[in-house]
């Protein structure tokens, strides 16, 4: 894994509310790991309308998901990837796709359920989950108060958590 590779995070450019078809590609590969999103997949296929070659791969359990690297490695240049999955599965599929050579411009990701957001404590370097709307959090490892900043690190896989002294909270 190259450190400068993109990773999936809650504000990733590849995350979409609805799939859109790109007609300028040679093939569309749909990886569906979430049966609940069958309607969205069908809508995509309807929209493709036979204009572009497509392949639908459905994963129903983790064992099948372990083959994702192999499938992605076999794809040719010009393939557009559509990922439909819950957060954790989407993260794995996305990482495998990047590793196989896909760029972010060639991927659309539809998350089923909640996206996850992580904060990196700059006092003790612990990564923890934070709710989407939270602006402050207490580090569950070192218990320091953290102000969640807008900057994300691919290396640390989270948003910056500035340690601060709550006694001076109004000025931070």
């Amino acid at each position, binding site marked *: 894994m190259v450190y400068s590779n993109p990773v999936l995070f809650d504000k990733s450019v590849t995350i979409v509310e609805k799939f859109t078809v790109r007609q300028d590609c040679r093939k569309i590969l749909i990886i569906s790991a979430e049966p609940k999103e069958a309607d969205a997949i069908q809508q995509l296929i309807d929209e493709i309308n036979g204009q572009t070659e497509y392949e639908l791969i459905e994963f129903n359990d983790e064992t099948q998901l372990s083959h994702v690297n192999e499938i992605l490695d076999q794809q040719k240049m010009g393939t557009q990837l559509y990922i439909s999955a819950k957060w954790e599965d989407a993260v794995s599929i996305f990482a495998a796709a990047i590793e196989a050579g896909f760029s972010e411009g060639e991927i659309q990701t539809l998350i089923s359920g909640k996206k996850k957001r992580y904060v990196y404590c*700059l006092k003790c370097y612990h990564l923890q989950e934070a709710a989407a709307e939270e602006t402050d959090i207490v580090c569950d490892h070192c218990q320091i108060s953290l102000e969640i900043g807008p900057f994300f690190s691919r290396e640390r896989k989270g948003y910056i958590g500035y340690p601060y002294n709550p006694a001076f909270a109004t000025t931070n």
Partner: protein
Amino acid sequence: MYESTNLDLFPYPFHNIKEGSNYRYSNDLRKLEKDHTNCVVITPEYEKQIKRKRELLKEQPAVRFQSYPHTMAMQWEVVEMLIEMAVDRYPEHFQVEKNGNHWTFHNYILNETESFIFGDASSIELEPLDLIGRHFTTDFVLMVHRDDNLYLEVAQESYAALFSPHWNKGMTFDEIHAPVPFVSRTGVPLAERVRNFLIRNVLPGEPWTRINWNLMANRWDVNYETFDTWGPTRFLVTPENAGDLVRLRVEEQFFYRMPRSNAILFVLNTQFLAMKDLVLRPEWLNQTYSILSDIPKPMAEYKGFSPFIEPTVEYLKNLVEKIEFQTN
């Protein structure tokens, strides 16, 4: 805490600003003249600074030094450059003996010797840049050029200001400077413009420089990791104590294109001057007072000194008036 005592060596940041003009952000890079490309400087505070730098590196290695395993060859290239500069400028303080790849570096100021096989990381206990960096007072950041951007791959920083080698590891130049809220007159983000300028103009044998400045309230390094400690101290400054507590923090930056790796080495020389010492150079005092009284709020916010800019300006105003009164 150390302060500059030899003002001839202090990189006063406002030299190029015309008298009576104000300070605004701009691309202020300047090419170093042919005979002035050596970044090694020994100040009277050398030993004090090295002692503190090594303490910080020892106490918090993960905070102060970061690198990727694939950077060894580029780190050795920096070792070679710094040793050559040190020996060239201060032969009375530094010497190197080379027996093939077996090198022995002597630091006579500290009475220390480093022996290693050049290019062989297993011959030393620290990583190459971490080892050689402990002989120089400056901080070092190695930015690797790829995909039209510069990526931070190695950093040894003990005087970080709103920066952290640990946090900024692997980031692009743009990501590191993402908090810079300013755009140029043409609407291009300043960080992007400076990045492109560095990539285009910093060439092998043609280093550049610029001076960055800030104000610090009784603190040497203001890294992200210790924000909870130094953040509140900014509110303790008053017009009465600003002369002692507030320092002009100057970061003289040098940019070298490394010929073999094509990376750009950032060398950062950080020096401090207490507000009360500005009086030693009355022209500096007057100009600093004039510039600080006219700092726009967003800039003070970005630089992190908005909590104590007012008492500092008040202190300088009183000092300027006092000097004027004494001379009249």
